[in-house]
């Protein structure tokens, strides 16, 4: 399993701040959505734990010392849920399943 190649946005500090401008935010969330999916596909992971997510290098770029806030992570995950790539395992929304493809595609 080779090293996962992060997209250019990952090294762009504003990527880790949720943008207030609606158009920009759209682009940003799209990028996050595909990053989360690619990352999980590459590492063959299916589950994501909110508590752990913040310290994983998916949401925490140590080289530029930027971290996506918990609130923003939830926004990204909500985006994934809307496109049916994510399902919550419990009601308290602590763990979720990441589906590389939506159930419809399977």
């Amino acid at each position: 399993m080779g090293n996962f190649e992060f997209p250019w946005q990952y090294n762009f500090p504003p990527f880790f701040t949720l943008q207030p401008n609606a158009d920009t935010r759209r682009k940003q969330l799209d990028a996050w959505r595909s990053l989360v999916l690619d990352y999980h596909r590459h590492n063959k992971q299916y589950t994501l734990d909110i508590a752990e997510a913040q310290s994983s290098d998916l949401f925490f770029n140590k080289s530029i010392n930027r971290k996506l806030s918990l609130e923003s992570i939830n926004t990204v995950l909500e985006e994934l849920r809307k496109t049916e790539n994510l399902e919550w395992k419990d009601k308290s929304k602590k763990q979720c399943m990441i589906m590389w493809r939506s159930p419809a595609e399977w």
Partner: protein
Amino acid sequence: PQKSIRTGIGGIEERLQQKHKDTDKDITQAFQDLSKLMNKAEEMVKLSKNLTQKIKDKRGEITDDETVQLKSYLLSLGVADPVTRETHGSGDTFYKELARQVSDVMTQPLQECGGIMPLSDVYCRMNRARGVEMLSPDDLVNACRLMSIMRLECRLQTFESGVMVLHLQEHSEDESLQDTVCRVESTGSLSADELARLIGLSVILSRERLLAAERKGELCRDDTAEGLRFYRNLFMTQ
């Protein structure tokens, strides 16, 4: 009555007591006068309210000159009654004159500082120059509101954040926006105070410029514990 000069502690106490009595008297008198004055003012307020009511009833029958005169009476009383007054003419002569004066005085300083200034700075400059007969914040804001109608050199502008600024008529927002974007591009990223230092503008206004550019989608933000920085909006271009 005879004036006994007593010495010792008893004497000092007596003198102190006398002093207290005197100040007490002064204070009560002052308050009495004040309440009398307020009673008089109250009558005036009642009268002016009656008058505004009458104007309302006879809309159109009274000439503009008469409303203007009433307004100047109200102003000198300190009775602002804009809800009913605004339906009868947009402002008043005092504000109009003031607007003209502010515009005249501020044109030069505005040119020196890049064509734009926060209203609080304008307030400082106007009142510092005056010394007496100062302006109240309300006066200044009301006067500045009239500037665009009067086609004066200076204009009032309110940013989305609520910050009010005075700017020159020829000052162009787009131009400063382009300039801001260029500066961010050449340095990679900028915070409001860095931009302020670069272009010699106040931090508040620099911040507004960056925010305006962000709204246009030219910049994007990086909000961290170290502060709020702005970058070129690569999301939209790459």
